[in-house]
């Protein structure tokens, strides 16, 4: 197969090498600065990120190692028109997914209609504890990260919906701050839509979903603690929203309410923005060995005396085996045509798909149904023969645990690398917020695969980030 980087859509240049209108001002600016100046700025950014402590831990490496996610100094630019379409499409998806979750945990009309198979109820991410439970506003995914890739001028695909505890929004906000600080003169050449109000929108939404009758709700952010890979983000968001950053040990349940331990005694908590997976939330309901959770929390939640964001049991809707039904959900619940397409997906649990995939492994991307973070996946075109053989063994052991998709030539963006400025593949994760209305701020986490030719953008696999500029006109 041809090198994906040369055949991919280049966000900055047309096939004949001309600079697209959107990037003209950026190109002019780039011509006026030297490679050395850019590298200098890049180092300055690294120093600032390190000082602020915007670091993450990679699992499996020695404990306490703190690494920076590389930051690329060249922004990704989207026009107002492009953004409008992405934004409408992402909002449409999240509306449908929230309706789906409500339906699945109540009447299950979509199963009765034969659109989604009843086997979904056997998915380990389906939580029977949530059956018949009403959540405030019918909202399950208060925060959703929709991963979008581009393969041509007008072709965008949704790669996956992250509805559990999606992370990365702090990079959207910190990258913006960094770009404004490092390159005010470039920033001024564009009319970039602001993103800084994200925490305020989120806080308003969280307050709006407090249990009925609570006038002035206390909202907290529940983190697994300082050793979690996304701890910086938890601390950052709590600080930006002015809410307490709590760990499981700070909360306790008494008389069917949740309280936090304060220096002045117990204080009632009404809304928990939790960044802990379902499994660890409550040792009495889920994993009994969890030290991170709060015993009794789920029982309070089911009684409606505390709101969790996101709700328990959203994982069943962002599972890769459920993903294939999202376009149908949009038609079923909203009566609309999907604005953003799904990537064609093969389910290895199904006979025909299984045979096709095994014959075409070198061309396909194969993923674990419940994997995330770029772990447990095979990128056929860049994998070695041995890697493909090994992965094949894994698939044979449990076929229904995998899905496969054609290898998409993700679009590329100019990126500062050691040899100069070169195209590198990117994706986009806008964050959709659901409260009284469903909204998103005009910006996104843009991840970039820094290794030449690589299509894996995950930070745990050597990916970096870029600031995303959505133009206002």
């Amino acid at each position, binding site marked *: 197969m041809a090198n994906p980087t040369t055949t991919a859509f280049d966000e900055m240049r047309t096939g004949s090498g001309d600079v697209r209108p959107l990037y003209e001002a950026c190109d002019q600016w780039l011509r006026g600065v030297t490679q050395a100046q850019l590298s200098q700025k890049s180092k300055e950014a690294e120093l600032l990120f*390190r*000082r*602020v*402590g915007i670091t993450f831990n990679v699992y499996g490496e020695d404990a306490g190692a703190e690494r920076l996610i590389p930051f690329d100094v060249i922004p990704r630019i989207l026009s107002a028109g492009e953004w409008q379409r992405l934004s409408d499409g992402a909002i449409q998806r999240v509306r449908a997914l929230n309706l789906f979750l409500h339906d699945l945990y109540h009447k299950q009309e979509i199963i009765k209609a034969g659109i989604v198979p009843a086997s979904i109820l056997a998915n380990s991410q389906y939580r029977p504890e949530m059956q018949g439970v009403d959540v405030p506003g019918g909202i399950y995914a208060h925060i959703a990260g929709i991963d979008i890739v581009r393969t041509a001028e007008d072709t965008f695909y949704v790669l996956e919906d992250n509805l559990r505890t999606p992370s990365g929004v702090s990079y959207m906000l910190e990258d913006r701050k960094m770009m404004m600080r490092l390159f005010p003169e470039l920033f001024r050449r564009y009319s970039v839509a602001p993103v800084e109000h994200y925490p305020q929108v989120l806080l308003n939404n969280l307050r709006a979903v407090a249990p009925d009758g609570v006038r002035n709700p206390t909202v907290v952010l529940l983190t697994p*603690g*300082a050793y979690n890979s996304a701890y910086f983000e938890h*601390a950052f968001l*709590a*600080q930006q929203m002015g809410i*307490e*950053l*709590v*760990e499981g*040990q*700070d909360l*306790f*349940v*008494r008389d069917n309410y949740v*309280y*936090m*331990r*304060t*220096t*002045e*005694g*117990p204080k009632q908590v009404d809304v928990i923005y939790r960044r802990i997976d379902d499994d660890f939330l409550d040792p009495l309901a889920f994993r009994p060995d969890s030290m991170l959770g709060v015993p009794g929390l789920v029982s309070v939640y089911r009684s409606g005396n505390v709101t969790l964001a996101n709700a328990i049991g959203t994982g069943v809707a962002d599972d890769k085996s459920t993903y294939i039904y999202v376009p149908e959900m949009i038609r079923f619940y909203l009566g609309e045509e999907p604005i953003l397409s799904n990537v064609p997906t093969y389910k290895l649990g199904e006979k025909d798909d299984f045979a096709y995939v095994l014959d075409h492994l070198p061309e396909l991307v194969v993923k674990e149904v419940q994997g995330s973070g770029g772990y447990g996946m095979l990128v056929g075109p860049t994998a070695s023969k041995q890697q493909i053989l090994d992965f094949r063994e894994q698939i044979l052991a449990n076929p229904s645990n995998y899905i496969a998709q054609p290898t998409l030539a993700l679009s590329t963006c100019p990126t500062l690398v050691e040899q100069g400025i070169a195209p590198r593949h990117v994706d986009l994760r806008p964050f959709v917020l659901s409260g009284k209305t469903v909204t998103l701020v005009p910006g996104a986490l843009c991840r970039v695969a820094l290794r030449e030719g690589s299509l894996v953008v995950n930070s745990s696999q050597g990916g970096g980030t870029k600031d995303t500029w959505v133009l206002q006109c």
Partner: protein
Amino acid sequence: MLSRTADHLYWMSRYIERAENMARVLDVTCRMSLVLNITQSEVDLWRPPLQIAGNVNVFEAKYGAYTAANVIRYMVLDEDNPSSILSALDSARENARAVRVAMSSEMWESVNSLWLELGQRVRAGIGEMEIGEFCDWVKSRSHLFRGVTYSTMLRDDGYRFARLGTFIERADNTARLLDVKYHCLLPATEGVGGAVDYYEWSAVLHAASAFEAYQKVFRDTITPWKVSELLVLRHDMPRSLHACFDEIMAILEHLSAAGSEECNRMVGELHARFHYGRMEDIFQGGLHEFLLDFIARNNALGNEIQRTFLRHPWS
């Protein structure tokens, strides 16, 4: 505020203050070793800083000989020594990292960049050549941190717990510093009031940044009595026990929790000793005994604060 948050802020400040005090003691010891190396043995010179920190036995078991290199290694770099400058600053940063939300971003950056630079310095090596500059650096970073705290942090309970940690730790350190003179055995040829005695008492003053203040206040030769008065009873001397307890008492008046009466009682009792006490009475009962008793009571106060406000289960 969250008890855990208060706990982290309190200990963050304590550890930074502890690192600063270790640096002060070490710095003065190094300078004394240059002045006194003819008249005193290595043990006499290098034992006192370990007595101050209260870990003579551990040191002897691990290192044996009292040499400059060993003591510097133990007090600065030894990760098994919880009071080494490296351990204290690591702990301060760990505590800060756990509650970065509760402080201003300037405070967090101050602690974090201190910790990052510490790593570089440790990798570059810290020995007798570097120790003077290193101690200055620790002191100035500690001053910077307190200054940043003072000028950027909201005056909420978080601020009070952060300050409380500073003064509880400082009071303990000042008392230990003063008490160490009790252990310093004068060489047989030297009497009280001799040259060595002078240098030792002035070293105590230097370690507490009190040398210049002493000259201003007393305009007199350095005597044990007056040094003690300055570091125990004077309320206008920032590192004195009296000054520390002025702060602690004011802070605790603002903090209230169910069952905090015992804290207030203990603070009031200690504060009264410094506020109304007389040097004659203290010396009559013995300065050493007075200080030992204080260190124990200050420690008990720390435990009571811990029990009342910090990590303590209600359910």
